[in-house]
């Protein structure tokens, strides 16, 4: 009992081949889209690599890029096969290739699905990576004279300006680190020395934030130093002042940004996966219909196309048997040409058995 059996006339077969040729070319375009989505994601992650502690999440864009390239090649081949399927003589060229092609494409669509699902599952890894990366970036903000870290200040400032955020979880994170380098602190001044001595680690901590935390929406000029000291500024209450600094933390801002990108990409990849599945089903129908036509001998006759020749259970069983037999060929079998030593032929050093002879 075939699964999904459909009868095709010659005209229907030709139409199916033409439609599939077009769909395969559209799939090549979607493969290119997949490739460029992977490239875009890679560029976005690389842009902010300084605030990400580990670059392991690059496996997602790499997977998308390879999947896109493979999709282009597979669908290009599929288009060629479908183009030749209109003519039964040309189809003979592809006869041996087409079934492995369909099996490979079937497994390939799994890769596309996995690619789509990883886009949704990356959030936890990203959260951890961003938290550590931002913490380090803030810690080394002042080290503009150290090789390898001299651009962290600039990157952090531009990040806070662009994403309209301040600090890791909020602006108070800047109060716990020294973000002014000792090169610009007057060590002879008593206020500076007092402040340095006021904490265990000898860091110059203050309730101030860098200028990049300033909000452009504020109606008054930015208050970035002595943020928690109400008396230091006229008509200022830091508890009610909402517009002075960016209130969102950069961790949340970046997480939202990347999650948004990945969810959109994941959605597009899911749509592409469904499309690939559709094209694969069409190619399977075309393959079975063409093979049946060849069996019948008359190229103009009607033929049946199906997804599976027998029911799902029987196909699974027969495939299982094939795999079992593949394994068995390495074991011994009943081939008479092979010399198998049996128990009678085995050379056992015989004991001299004294058989009592009856007289």
């Amino acid at each position, binding site marked *: 009992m075939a699964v999904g059996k459909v009868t095709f006339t010659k005209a229907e077969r030709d139409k199916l081949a033409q439609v599939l040729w077009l769909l395969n070319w559209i799939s090549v375009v979607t493969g290119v889209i997949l490739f460029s989505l992977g490239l875009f994601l890679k560029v976005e992650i690389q842009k902010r690599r300084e605030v990400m502690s580990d670059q392991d999440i690059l496996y997602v864009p790499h997977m998308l890029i390879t999947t896109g390239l493979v999709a282009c090649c597979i669908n290009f081949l599929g288009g060629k096969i479908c183009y030749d399927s209109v003519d039964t003589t040309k189809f003979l060229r592809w006869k041996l290739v087409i079934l492995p092609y369909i099996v490979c494409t079937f497994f390939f669509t799994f890769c596309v699905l996995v690619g789509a699902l990883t886009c949704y599952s990356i959030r936890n890894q990203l959260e951890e990576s961003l938290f550590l990366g931002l913490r380090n970036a803030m810690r080394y903000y002042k080290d503009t004279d150290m090789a390898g870290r001299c651009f962290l200040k600039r990157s952090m400032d531009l990040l806070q300006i662009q994403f309209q955020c301040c600090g890791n979880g909020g602006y108070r994170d800047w109060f716990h680190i020294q973000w002014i380098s000792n090169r*610009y602190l007057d060590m002879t001044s008593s206020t500076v020395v007092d402040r340095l001595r006021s904490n265990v680690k000898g860091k110059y901590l203050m309730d101030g934030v860098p200028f990049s935390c300033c909000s452009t929406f504020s109606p008054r000029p930015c208050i970035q130093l002595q943020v928690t000291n109400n008396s230091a500024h006229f008509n200022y209450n830091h508890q009610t002042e909402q517009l002075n600094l960016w209130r969102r933390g950069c961790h949340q801002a970046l997480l939202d940004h990347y999650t948004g990108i990945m969810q959109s990409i994941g959605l597009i990849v899911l749509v592409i996966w469904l499309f690939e599945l559709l094209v694969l089903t069409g190619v399977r129908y075309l393959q079975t219909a063409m093979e049946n036509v060849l069996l019948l001998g008359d190229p103009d006759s009607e033929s049946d196309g199906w997804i599976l020749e027998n029911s799902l259970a029987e196909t699974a069983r027969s495939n299982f048997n094939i795999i079992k037999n593949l394994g068995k060929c390495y074991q011994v079998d009943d081939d008479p040409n092979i010399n198998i030593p049996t128990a009678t032929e085995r050379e056992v050093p015989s004991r001299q058995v004294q058989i009592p002879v009856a007289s």
Partner: protein
Amino acid sequence: MAFMPVKFDLPKRVKLAQGLWLLYWISMMVGILIFSLGIFFKIELRKRSEMMDNNESHFVPNLLILMGMVACGVNAFGGKVTHDSLDPTKFPKWKPMLKPYLTFCCGFNILLLITALLCFLMQFALYLTLADGLKNGIKFYKDTDTPGRCFMKRTLDMTQIEFRCCGNNNYRDWFEVQWISNRYLDMSNVEVRDRVMSNVEGKYLMDSVPFSCCNPGSPRPCIQHHLTNNSAHYDYDHRIEELNIWTRGCREALVAYYGGLMNSIGGLILLTIILESVDMAGLKYLTTSLESMSDPENPECESEGWLLEKGVKETMSDLFAKLKTMGKTNQVEEGAQAAT
């Protein structure tokens, strides 16, 4: 004696028609590009209209949009004519429209040339508009509570951050203006009162700049107050310090940006003029070679195509004479009416 005649046989005519059809498609794409550049330019002007006192002229982007649409139409028509030209049944219906069409294309090219010139010249008008607009912008920076001006602070801050500039000509423009509103000044404080009274107009002036002038590339945290006072900051000399705040003025930055945009658009229009001229020449060759076929029933015969039927000088004198007779017919009519 025809001007630049070329002999055509059937394969050459077919090749010319195919090449011309492709060229018309490319010209249509270029027309769409000009249209979208016009829209983009209009949006860019709108985005910063506050910096230009809201009275910038939208003439050039509107003209670009119009030219883009006309280019699309002209090239679509030309493409259709070329497509039908090799089919002897369809071509005759286009024949009478060819002469007015080519004249229109000539006029359109002249209009494109004028547009390109305007693009290049508009930069001067923009320079003056920006100078005024930025000066007012800096003046009204503090008026975040006045309706109509409450977003000036935000716009100016965003402009200074985005274009990496400070002030109108340079950062010293901020020293001459009170950019902190009186709402946030403690008038009971002696220092504040002294500063307000220290100048004729009673403005709170100081040698400080807003935070948006800060350069993120500076190795030290931004110094925005007491900029000219070296002793107010440790290890600071304002004369040699270049990385602290942006040194470029916003007028220069904006003019450079818009100037670059307008120069590119002007260059593209000049390219379009060349493309359109090539299209016109190709169409003229194609139509004359089809019309001058000695045996219309036999498509494989040879024919000659040319750009102008007579030489350049003769064509110009013919055109001149025609214009003169056009003027003269009016005179003769008047004379006849006066006589009756």
